[in-house]
């Protein structure tokens, strides 16, 4: 679906973000992490009394585990939606909040999710005396942090770009703020939000698998689920069990695709804003089924009506005068606000540095930086390799619409499939042939995310105007000239979108891919991901904070210096519409 691929791009086109506020956002993020870490230290003790739930490798347990894993995903999605609507609305409606919230969000999405899982686990365990609930909450939180940011960006941008004439119409017809939100802003944001939700769900499987079995220090927390099953299979060196869990995951993702993804996309199509005539609308048999089932309609009717009535309420007097946006800008208040935010940021930065300095020296910083550059090299080289492989293949597929129709869902499926389930297969091979882990572990970091490149390239090629193709063949443009002047510029924006997603995923994956094990055998590649993973296992908090900070800085720099200019260039020069 070419249109959707471009829409997803919205999350990276962040023209509205004031860069100087990064200086403030960074310390704030790490200040919060530090808070979590403090809590972690104090609550390590009760952990020892935790009764570990045991995971059985019997395949018959897999349906139950799969269900629990899926429920965690859905709980995280609900939390992400709630976060998106509140945070996104606040950022879009309040100028002062926007100055802080948007840079903060930008930094948050470059912080590796699996990096701080050690803090959050211990933090949430301390919140819930019931323990298992605490571990569940930590896993859900980890998935939440992998899902929420791009959804929030999409929502915020929709609110900011809502068409002016419709805004004026809602004001002219005197919608209250509440009515405007539900009648206009949310529907307008819906297609982008749904698409980003689905992308987040796809990405989320990877994190749910990684967060169900976490080792912090000498304690391992296991939550019954697909990820825990995999961890157990890895520990017991049971390849057959790995096969079972892969099969279970395939079934889960197919079900999720049919029962959730497609119905949602088909439903959200009615919110499509373009007024152009009918094109092939996405369909879903399951949605049709739901909509045609009279029993279901009857059962859900009261709920429907309640929601509708709620959306219709004004919650504000009809004669409120506040509907006109305020144009007064108070310079003095702005200054006080800026100073307050800057002060908080400075304080947070000082606390973070003080904390990290208590456990690490300059040697450690230099070492982490060096390892960071190793991982950076890995990401860059692998994105390049993946581009070389998948661009030609994607173009060839995209030029054949019939083939593309069949391949495209497969590519989407592969992107959703958590690549960490396949790690054991690679590890066994590396162990067996005694290969150099620095090189041969590298492909794992892009194993799951390379598909984003493929399906964006296919989407780009399918959206490529037929006129241009005919013109190219009419003028007999072939070979390298055809690639260079005809197709590559046309698909470039799509490729950049795919590559940004792939690179972002690769950084996250490095934390689980650079240090892997098979039974007692441990294989470690040199890199920042392995550094974070090993220090997590050793519960060395200052070093974890250092590792995450350096990775975040690298990711942010990478985004700013490479992806954003490329994206701006693609938006500016290579748009075909």
């Amino acid at each position, binding site marked *: 679906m070419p249109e959707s691929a471009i829409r997803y791009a919205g999350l990276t086109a962040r023209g509205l973000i004031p860069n100087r506020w990064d200086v403030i956002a960074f310390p704030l993020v790490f200040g919060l992490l530090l808070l979590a870490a403090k809590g972690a230290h104090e609550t390590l003790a009760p952990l020892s009394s935790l009764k570990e739930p045991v995971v059985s490798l019997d395949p018959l347990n897999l349906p139950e585990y799969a269900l629990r894993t899926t429920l965690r995903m859905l709980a995280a999605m609900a939390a992400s939606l709630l976060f998106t609507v509140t945070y996104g609305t606040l950022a879009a409606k309040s100028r002062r909040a926007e100055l802080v919230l948007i840079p903060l969000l930008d930094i948050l999405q470059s912080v590796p999710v699996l990096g701080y899982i050690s803090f959050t686990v211990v933090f949430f365990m301390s919140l819930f005396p019931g323990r298992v609930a605490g571990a569940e909450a930590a896993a859900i939180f980890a998935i939440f942090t992998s899902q929420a940011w791009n959804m929030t960006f999409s929502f915020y941008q929709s609110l900011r770009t809502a068409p002016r004439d419709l805004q004026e119409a809602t*004001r*002219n017809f005197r919608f209250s703020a509440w009515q405007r939100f539900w*009648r206009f802003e949310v529907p307008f944001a819906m297609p982008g939000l749904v698409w980003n939700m689905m992308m987040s769900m796809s990405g989320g499987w990877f994190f749910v698998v990684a967060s169900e079995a976490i080792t912090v220090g000498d304690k391992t927390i296991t939550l019954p689920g697909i990820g825990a099953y995999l961890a157990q299979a890895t520990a017991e060196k049971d390849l057959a069990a790995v096969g079972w869990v892969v099969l279970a995951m395939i079934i889960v993702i197919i079900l999720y695709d049919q029962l959730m993804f497609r119905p949602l996309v088909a439903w959200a199509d009615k919110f499509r804003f373009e007024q152009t005539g009918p094109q092939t609308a996405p369909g879903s048999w399951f949605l049709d089924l739901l909509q045609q089932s009279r029993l279901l309609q009857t059962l859900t009717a009261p709920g429907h009506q309640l929601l509708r009535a709620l959306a*219709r309420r004004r919650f504000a007097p009809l004669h409120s005068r506040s509907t006109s946006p305020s144009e007064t800008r108070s310079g003095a208040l702005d200054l006080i606000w800026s100073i307050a935010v800057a002060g908080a940021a400075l304080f947070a930065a000082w606390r973070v540095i003080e904390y990290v300095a208590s456990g690490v020296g300059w040697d450690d910083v230099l070492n982490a930086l060096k390892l960071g550059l190793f991982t950076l090299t890995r990401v860059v080289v692998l994105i390049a390799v993946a581009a070389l492989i998948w661009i030609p293949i994607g173009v060839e597929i995209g030029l054949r619409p019939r083939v593309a129709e069949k391949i495209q869902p497969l590519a989407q499926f592969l992107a959703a499939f958590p690549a960490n389930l396949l790690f054991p297969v690679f590890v066994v091979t590396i162990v067996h042939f005694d290969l150099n882990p620095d090189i041969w572990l590298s492909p794992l970091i892009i194993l799951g995310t390379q598909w984003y490149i493929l399906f964006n390239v296919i989407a780009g090629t399918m959206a490529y105007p037929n006129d241009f193709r005919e013109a190219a063949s009419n003028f007999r443009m072939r070979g390298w000239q055809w690639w260079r002047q005809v197709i590559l510029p046309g698909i470039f924006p799509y490729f950049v979108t795919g590559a940004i997603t792939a690179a972002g995923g690769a950084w996250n994956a490095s934390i689980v891919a650079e240090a892997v094990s098979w039974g007692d055998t441990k294989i470690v590649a040199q890199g920042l991901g392995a550094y974070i993973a090993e220090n997590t296992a050793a519960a060395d908090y200052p070093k974890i904070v250092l590792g995450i900070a350096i990775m975040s800085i690298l990711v942010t720099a990478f985004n700013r210096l490479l992806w954003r200019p490329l994206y701006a260039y693609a938006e500016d020069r290579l748009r075909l519409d």
Partner: protein
Amino acid sequence: MVVTDTLSETRLSQPILTVRGVSRGFARGSGEIRVLADVDLSLRSGEIVGLLGRSGSGKSTLLRIIAGLIRPSEGQVVYRGHPVGGPAEGIAMVFQTFALFPWLTVLQNVEAGLEALSVPAAESRRRALAAIDLIGLDGFESAYPRELSGGMRQRVGFARALVVEPTILLLDEPFSALDVLTAETIRTDLLDLWTERRLPIKSMLMVTHNIEEAVFMCDRILIFSSNPGRVAGEIEVTFPHPRNRLDPAFREMVDDIYAKMTARPSTGAAGQMPRLQLGSRLPPVSTNVIAGLIETVAAPPYAGKADLPEIARTLQLEIDELFPVAELLHYLGFAEIKEGDILLSSAARSFADLDTQTRKKVFAQHLLASVPLAQHIKRVLDERPGHHAPRVRFEQELEDHLSDGAAEETLDSVIDWARYAEIFAYDDQSEMFSLEDPGG
């Protein structure tokens, strides 16, 4: 069809809405750029009033101030005895772009305005269906806007505005996004409903840049001048409905308005247009259109002199399309505009017979002689050692005089003309002007 003369009634009644000394400007550098200056008008029961002017004359801004969507910098709008401070009850608007919610059906779109007023569901449904019926949309209730043609979409726009039973209906160029035939149908349908008094409204205020449309529909026309927008003249239209566009009196009025709109009493000698300044706004007119108008006027039957309304009719141009070209010809010394006529200069007459390369040379001479901005850029490039200059340098200079959008548009226009005239080059990628000739 019932024919009524609403004028006598109009004169007697009290104004339902009064605009008093309304101005609107925004801060720019040291000073302020005014888009609307000291506008007074009143709207009485039973009349259709037209705001006629070119783009940039602030008429849409005025409409939004009246609707309470924008606050005036000075002055106030008084409606039913109270100043308007926000969207007011009884003032509904029809948008140029229709502004329909694409995710709502026709019926839901029409009901949306009632829902906002918390009208009970049953009554809301009844009223919406009645409005849909009135406006000729029955059968389309369950369609989504994207399934409809432009004309049907605008009918939804009308139904949505009428269903809230407003006192005043504001129309923001409601027919300009429609093709000629569709626009005419909806116009006459609306006028029929109005003259038959089947509309719940008391008065209509319509923004337009189409002179014929204004004369066809309005009882009173306020002519706006640009930069800043102000009321330059008022014309009463007393023809009874339905009006005949071919009636000589109708045509005479259209011609008269053309003459009024091309004359500029506020500046310089009678009917004489001033010369361009460095900070003047330059319209986005393509050199093809410039050459096209010269050729058309130079050729028979005009032979160098033509009536602007007639040109507009034969070429199917709106005044917003024709006036900027005609005026630019005037500024460039290719023509003179007087009382609604265009008169080609001798330079333009010979221009029509030249080949492309010579045309470019002649155009370059005229451009450098009469457009100070082109002169200025050329001089800066000549003086600089590397013969390069960044765009932002000139953009900042222009922004002292023009709004952001206008400054950008002006610079783009001059770039386009200079490229045709080959007097300097511009690289959009690096945003740099230069004297380089990419050809050699």
